[in-house]
């Protein structure tokens, strides 16, 4: 990659796999459980977090030397709250129905541990460009898991992807449903997301045994 040095590229690539915020650091689980019943909501949530975390990291990084360390949490909260309000307003303006489904969870991006975690751990100690890459990378890692979970939950739970029926019509019994297949109601409820995330963690750690923690 000519655009990025190897070190910078790792800032984006690491969180996608071996340092994934959800499966390795186990952060941001709350929203991963709550909104992944539909793929569309997962994608929008992922994009929102990419926007908030990428930009937020840059802002925090730019003002990192002038924030008094005693009130840095408050300052971080103001930055992330501002960005989340922008996201919320944009969603309400252009995707009203979806913003109703996501409802409180867009607002709760503020309390997503990944965001505060990256501000504290990275943006406060690094320059804006590297912070930007780190923010994008972590948000992507979060988004990838969200989309994987959303894909399985929507496919198995509702038989649709992005709201489009892909397995046939469950009421008229066409497609796969004519064989007696039925949607799995378990996949709709949040505990299913916990189990899907658990399976991803399991698969990832058995492929790369170095990730298994000592206890």
């Amino acid at each position: 990659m000519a655009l990025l040095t190897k070190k910078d590229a790792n800032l984006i690539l690491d969180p996608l796999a071996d340092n994934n915020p959800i499966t390795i650091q186990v952060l941001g689980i709350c929203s991963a459980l709550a909104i992944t019943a539909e793929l569309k909501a997962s994608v929008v949530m992922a994009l929102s977090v990419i926007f908030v975390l990428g930009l937020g990291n840059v802002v925090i990084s730019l003002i990192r030397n002038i924030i008094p360390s005693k009130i840095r949490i408050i300052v971080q909260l103001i930055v992330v709250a501002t960005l989340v309000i922008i996201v919320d307003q944009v969603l309400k303006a252009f995707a009203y129905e979806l913003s109703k489904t996501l409802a409180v969870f867009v607002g709760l991006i503020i309390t997503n541990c990944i965001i505060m975690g990256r501000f504290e751990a990275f943006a406060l100690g690094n320059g804006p460009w590297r912070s930007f890459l780190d923010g994008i990378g972590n948000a992507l890692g979060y988004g990838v898991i969200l989309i994987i979970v959303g894909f399985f939950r929507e496919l198995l739970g509702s038989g649709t992807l992005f709201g489009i029926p892909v397995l046939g019509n469950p009421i008229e019994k066409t497609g796969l449903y004519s064989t007696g297949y039925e949607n799995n109601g378990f996949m709709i409820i949040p505990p299913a997301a916990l189990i899907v995330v658990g399976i991803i963690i399991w698969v990832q750690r058995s492929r790369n045994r170095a990730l298994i923690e000592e206890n």
Partner: protein
Amino acid sequence: MSDKRLTFKKRLHILKHRYRGKKMAPAFNAFHTFLFSPDETTHSGSHVRVVDDLKRTMNTVIMALIPVLLFSFFNTGYQHYSAINGFPENFSVMEHFLTWENFWLGFVQVIPLVIVSYGVGLFIEFIFAVIKGHEVEEGYLVTGMLVPLIVPVDTPLWMLAVAVVFGVVIGKEVFGGTGMNILNPALTIRAFLFFAYPTWMSGDKVWVHGAVERAGTTDAISGETVLGYLAQNGTFDYSVSDMFFGFIPGSVGETSAFLCLLGGLFLIFSKIASWRIMVSAVAGALVMGLVFNGVADAGWIAETSKFYGLMSFDFWKHLIVGGLAFGIVYMATDPVTGAQTNRGKWIYGFLIGFISVMIRVFNPAYPEGVFLAILLMNVFAPTIDHYVIRGNVRRRMKRMKNATIIPRGTAGKEEELKAETV
């Protein structure tokens, strides 16, 4: 027996040594040890040799389940034909219940459930044994028999297969296999089915064979459970003896409280299951039932309330309807997922009975709660044990602190020394 002749058993031993260290060895050994005891066991010397191993324990539970399974064949047929032709006027067990017709219909309906449960479950066990390179564990023997008995008779086989895969992998193998699981695998399977396919697990259509197919046609039949009638404040025609002996609709094998009682006694006297858990669970259910009866009698709840039917149901009848008896005898006493300490078992069992009846009454979607109560207490069992042990430690510490130690040989001097510990 001459040494020259190769018996089947010897051939298997030879094959086993040939396959030792190969990838498929555990799968082969599972079949081998299922038929014969392995040849590594000691034949001489001062060893304690008992037959009471894990496999024997499991077999005892299965023996206790056989009457329940046989009864379920007859009851499946009886409920089906009664729903179609009407219940017999002068019911006699020999004439209307123990008939070949009933048996055959039940056999044809229930045996596929058993085969799918064992087939899929053992297949998963084999895969994990081969991957992990250990011997195939016996843990699925009992689970595989319990699963067909706690589902409605018309459960589609593919659903059961999916649920068994889920239950064995997520409920057991991820924790490390037999003996390491937190939740009872059979109940995990039941809970998965309940949450995944609720239309097949609740309502008035699933408890009698054929009711789902006939729904909406002129031949429609229905088979509401006793609890289902109560949840709708309805009335039912089943007598107390019907409920006790199990001539009522319900999951395949859960209906007969009488056979569960016999099975429970058998398990207690063979010292496989804990009587403490059973007794305290019954006590818990009775106490909760009494509380609800008291609330209903005191008039604190209107007769039109949707909880009235279940609340005013005589407290002791809770024990003979639904899956409470089956759950208490065969599920709550699972030694792996239950409490281990004696005092813990009292608390654990009591809360299972107590919460079961509570969920029964307050669960709006499905008037049954035994499996949920047992799963919940499975989660709390280690915590209960922890505090029981802590309590024991604290009490003994206190006793030791306050103990007066009279040194040997000074008995006459009455010299008392305060123990200086802790």
